[in-house]
């Protein structure tokens, strides 16, 4: 996991406290050509964002202790990570993007979500330099 990312690939940080969600997204996005790093809570997500510098971070909003919104605010406040596009993931269908915009999110996906929708958001926010990622 600590290996430097390949120049040609886009690195995605997936943070979710539901381990199965992390597992399937990791497999899916890897198959789609992305380099995936994972975190199962907010603290781990922030630490990995600061050290591994992903191109996009997908943060679950309902993580216990240190929520996705708190991670987003902390990333925005840190010059090293302030530029990283952020996607919020939530299981609450009433969440609206404008409500979490203040925390620094650029996009919102509501679970369950079509895997293609997440890929579309990732491509919009972090175009693959060589066109390898996605399909």
């Amino acid at each position, binding site marked *: 996991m600590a290996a430097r990312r390949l120049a040609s690939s886009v690195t995605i940080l997936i943070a979710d406290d539901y*381990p199965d969600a992390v597992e*399937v997204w990791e*497999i*899916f996005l890897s198959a789609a050509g992305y380099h995936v790093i994972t975190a199962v809570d907010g603290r781990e997500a922030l630490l990995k964002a600061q050290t591994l510098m992903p191109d996009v971070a997908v943060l679950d909003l*309902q993580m216990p*202790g240190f929520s996705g919104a708190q991670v987003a605010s902390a990333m925005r406040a840190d010059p090293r990570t302030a530029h990283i596009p952020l996607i919020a993931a939530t*299981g*609450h269908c009433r969440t609206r993007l404008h409500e979490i915009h203040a925390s620094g999110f650029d996009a919102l996906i509501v679970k369950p*979500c079509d*895997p293609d929708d997440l890929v579309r958001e990732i491509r919009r926010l972090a175009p693959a330099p060589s066109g390898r990622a996605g399909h």
Partner: protein
Amino acid sequence: MTTPNFSATVHHLAARLTAEHATLALAWLERLDQLLDVDRRDVFPTHQLLDHIPELLREVAAYLRAPAEQEIAANTAIMAKAAELGLLRFDQRASVHQVLREYQMLSDILESFFARETAALAERADATAAVLVVSRASQAVHELQRKTVDAFITRFSETIERQHGQLRDFGRLVSYEIRQPLGVLQVLTRLLQQSEPADAPRLVATLERNVLRMAEVAGKLERLARLTRSETSPNDQRVDLAAISRDVADQLADMAEVRGVVFEIDEALPSLTADAGRVELVLMNLMANAVKYSDPGKAGRFVRVRLDDRDGRRTVWVEDNGLGIPAAKRALIFEQFERAHAHLDDKLGAQGLGLGLSIVRECMDAMGGAVTVESEEQQGAAFVLTWPPAAWRPA
């Protein structure tokens, strides 16, 4: 204006009402009974109403003797009683319409009572006084009615509001609990179509886990629905606590074995009269929790169900030497969706909606009992169950 005759008439009528208040209350109840169908009569809380109505009538009589400028609303004790009647009728599931009808009957009964009493006085009756008494009595009943209906409606709105809030929170959480595994399933269907066959077993295992999780949510919803449905028709029967605890322990045997937990069921547990389904649900939730949150760091892990007869108070204890419940969480654990150990789910292989203990509390409430918790963090937890004394009486 006031002649001796006037004042004597007022006092006589008031005294007659004081003397007859219990008889009039019975006449009122009898008329009420005629309005009810047979089914309702079975559950009609005669004794509780007879606690309120005679007292209201006695206070109306006292009010008739009071100075003309005095308002019945100034009598705070009787206004409180009228409000209490409203709450009581609400708890008995009466309607506002029914309450209004009851007061109308009370008015009618008083009116014909005073008409009879005035007629009995014949020429000794002061006509102005008789009219004044009837009008003051009717005004008093009107005030009492307003107080009762106000209390009824206030309680009604509070209840609706509370239920609405609970339902909203519940809906949100259930949808969240379903969305989580559903999200995994949606990605999995795609993965299973495109992945290497070698990955399949692992993906299928994840699939199975998440389908089970959804089934668990559905099961809990059904149990919750069953609880609310059966609220009005308790199925009381003789329940052998030792036998039912052993049954539950058998059902949880696999779960306990994996975690190295031993069940200790007190053979002295007696029988009680209660809803067997509810008793089982209570024990099932408490014993399963105790196993789930056993402390892997301790030797001799146990879950014990025992009787306690200290100080003439009979209680049933479900206790363990598990992780215990942090003091800060103790007050809230009986609320829906509260989970004291959510952060340990992965470590313990536990998961849940946080409904278990709210189901326990709901069941104990429905049986007229109670559940409390005693716990030292790291030492274990003890859930103390209390049933009404009548439940322990031999059948």
